[in-house]
């Protein structure tokens, strides 16, 4: 053998060895999803974690369904009508639906689900408070139920599409312990439960008797991977097919884009970010100062340079997808000279200081805050950045009004209704509103809540956004994109803005 031939033989052997290792590790028809958090329980009434819904939306159904297009469509209920001026909703239930364990779905199951959610068992979890507008569930016949409401709840149909309102099998739930149901969920969805290994994985398989479009892949596995670099490495290695939010940081976008086997899906999310003001004390108590600080910061440049364009500048504290969003309301333009003039008018001397509180674990926002501080220094305001441990900040510092003059706030309710945000942020005495109290704003917020007239409610929500912008209650920054990393062998994957994934249409090659 000539040296060249030996080299060739060696190279061939090496190549063969490599193909042996890179051959697809899975049988066809298996989809593996990396999710950053294990909710610990699959019972719909136990949790508020978005990543519960990323997986459990495949196991359970609600009476209604809202997919990635944000439209409310029938699910376990085929139709519904409002009675008694919105205080009663009658649902016609889908016939012939069975749970994964063979139990039939009927009016009894609906009543059982809501009695459980609103009763003692639901009270121990966080979901109950979302559904307290329901006072009673009345069975009309086997496939008709009435939900009686204490007051009209315009967001109820949306809320019935997720979380606590997912319909559970009465017999299975009552015959087993609470713990058993947490770890062995049964629903009516396109995939049924196979096994759950806490902190490691959840395995599901296609449910043959599903009432809707049956799943295209036979197996669906969720792996819980917190560390972004690890999740992306698994994606690059081809052992994970989809990495769902909130995992991939903006800094890792180029890695995914550079890999020929992968693609990035970037979709508008409900998540918005702002630096909110202490409107009660210090220089930010003056509305002119608050406005000047916004004008001093070039938010377009921050989005472009720091966030790699994976966000949109906002004018009010909501996503364009939210009900009540007003496209006419434009962000204040970058105007450092105007900012200086306003500051001078307000009597703020150059060298005045503000403290910006940020979440200690959020590297991306840390950079944003530094850029904000740099812009503020250009108009003579010295900003110091104070990182605080996430949970301390959310549960103690903000609710107790112990923040600096400005503090980081993120928000993103899955209901996509501005009421959810605005009420929590601006209404007097709310947990997230430690500083401000405005009777006019309170009145506006309360007035829209019971309205079932969508147009009128939307008009008031828009008015609220304009009012909050006029009072400059926060420095609105941006609406971040939800980032999905996807292997190109995955087809028909529709990245949901709210991360609630229903994967029956997905195929793998």
């Amino acid at each position, binding site marked *: 053998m000539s040296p060249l031939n030996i080299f060739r033989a060696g190279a061939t052997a090496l190549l063969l060895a490599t193909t042996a290792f890179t051959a697809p590790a899975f049988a066809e028809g298996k989809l593996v999803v990396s999710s950053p958090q294990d909710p610990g329980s699959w*019972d719909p009434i136990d949790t508020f974690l978005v990543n519960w819904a990323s997986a459990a939306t495949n196991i359970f159904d609600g009476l209604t369904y809202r997919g990635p297009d944000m439209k409310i469509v029938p699910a376990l209920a085929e139709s519904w009508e409002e009675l008694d001026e919105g205080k009663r909703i009658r649902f016609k239930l889908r016939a012939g639906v069975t749970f994964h364990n063979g139990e039939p779905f009927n009016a009894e199951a609906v009543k059982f689900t809501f009695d459980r959610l609103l009763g003692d068992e639901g009270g*121990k979890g966080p979901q109950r408070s979302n559904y307290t507008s329901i006072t009673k569930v009345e069975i009309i016949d086997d496939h008709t139920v009435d939900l009686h409401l204490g007051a009209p709840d315009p967001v109820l149909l949306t809320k019935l599409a997720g979380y606590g309102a997912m319909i559970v099998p009465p017999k299975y739930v009552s015959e087993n312990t609470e713990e058993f149901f947490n770890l062995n969920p049964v629903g009516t969805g396109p995939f049924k439960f196979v096994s759950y290994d806490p902190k490691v994985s959840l395995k599901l398989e296609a449910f043959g008797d599903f009432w809707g479009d049956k799943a295209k892949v036979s197996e669906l596995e969720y792996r819980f991977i917190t560390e972004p670099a*690890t999740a992306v490495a698994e994606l690059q290695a081809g052992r994970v097919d989809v990495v769902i939010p909130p995992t991939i940081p903006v800094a890792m976008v180029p890695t995914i884009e550079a890999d020929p086997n992968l693609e990035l899906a970037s979709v508008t999310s409900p998540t918005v970010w702002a630096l909110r003001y202490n409107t009660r004390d210090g220089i930010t108590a003056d509305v002119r100062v608050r406005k000047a600080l916004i004008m001093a910061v070039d938010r377009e440049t921050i989005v472009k340079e720091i966030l790699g364009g994976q966000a949109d500048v906002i004018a009010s504290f909501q996503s364009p997808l939210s009900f009540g969003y007003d496209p006419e309301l434009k962000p204040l333009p970058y105007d450092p000279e105007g900012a200086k003039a306003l500051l001078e008018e307000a009597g703020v001397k150059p060298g005045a200081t503000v403290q910006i509180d940020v979440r200690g674990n959020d590297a991306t926002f840390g950079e944003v805050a530094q850029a904000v501080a740099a812009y503020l220094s250009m108009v003579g305001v010295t900003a110091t950045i104070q990182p605080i441990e996430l949970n301390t900040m959310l549960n103690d510092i903000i609710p107790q009004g112990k923040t600096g003059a400005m503090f980081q706030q993120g928000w993103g309710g899955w209901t996509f209704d501005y009421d959810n945000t605005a009420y929590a942020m601006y209404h007097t005495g709310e947990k997230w509103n430690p500083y401000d109290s405005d009777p006019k704003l309170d009145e506006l917020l309360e007035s829209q809540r019971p309205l079932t007239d969508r147009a009128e409610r939307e008009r008031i929500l828009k008015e609220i956004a304009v009012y909050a912008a006029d009072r400059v209650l926060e420095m609105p920054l941006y609406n971040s994109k939800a980032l999905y990393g996807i292997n190109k062998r995955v087809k028909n994957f529709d990245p949901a803005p709210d991360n609630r994934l229903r994967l029956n249409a997905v195929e793998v090659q």
Partner: protein
Amino acid sequence: MIGFILKRLLQAAFVVVAVSLVVAVAIRMTGDPALMISQGATNITEADLQRIREGLGLNEPFVVQYANSLIGLLTWNFGNSFVGGTPVNILISRALPATLMLAFTSLLLSIIISVPLGIRAAVSRGRWSDQLIRICSLVGLSFPNFWLATMLVLLFAVTFRLLPPSGMSGFESFIMPTLTMGIILTATNVRLVRTTMLETLNSQYIMVARAKGLSENKVLYKHALRNCAIPLITYFGLQFGGLLGGIVVIERVFNWPGMGTLAFDAVAARDYPVLQAVIMILSLMIVLVNLIVDIAYGFVDPRIRKE
């Protein structure tokens, strides 16, 4: 001997009580788990929060809650996690073996490499092989472990696709985490073995052994190594204890379903029962490892056995 073991077990109990008490008090200062669980809930009222606290057992007096967690250690029933209500013993029974196995393989790898290298360095003190070993160990010491881990993943999992990047799934999955931990431990251990060996080689009985005309190998491995063993066993034992708590970073990078991951998530979620159980078990393990080390002395050194 039995009296000695009893005394040490009593000490162990004291350590576990002291550590768990500190943890129990400290974690309760971080804030209210009910707020944590209901984060994102709208319209939540104080009555709702009360109900959640009641369900978590937080309305019991602190003494009762703490006593329950101690009894839990004896009965292996630590209650349910605040996140999702999974029984804590299920979580522990999966995480503890994962961590123990990883700590064991890492330490084993390190001992296998560092003992021969350390002896070689000591024997050839000042010569080029000693220099080389010392330089390598310095390089090993200078790697931050998360960096080393990331590099290994990029090389073996992403580029060559030979090994799984993360998770615990069979033999291959142990290679990278073990290497990462092993390399860093080896860096320290080589120096330790070298120093200990040098001290021993300077003692008079080695000179006697050599004077008797024993072969150099016999001197090294029969006389010197046996006498080095006591400080080394002590150190490796302590290191094993330290490893159990210290592989948090590695567990995170490799998504290893161990005690570190469990503790990390529990702290972030104010999950009292899980954190308490993890800490109590880890401190118990550390104390026990030390006890085993002490007992092991007796086998290595007859003088201690007689005392």
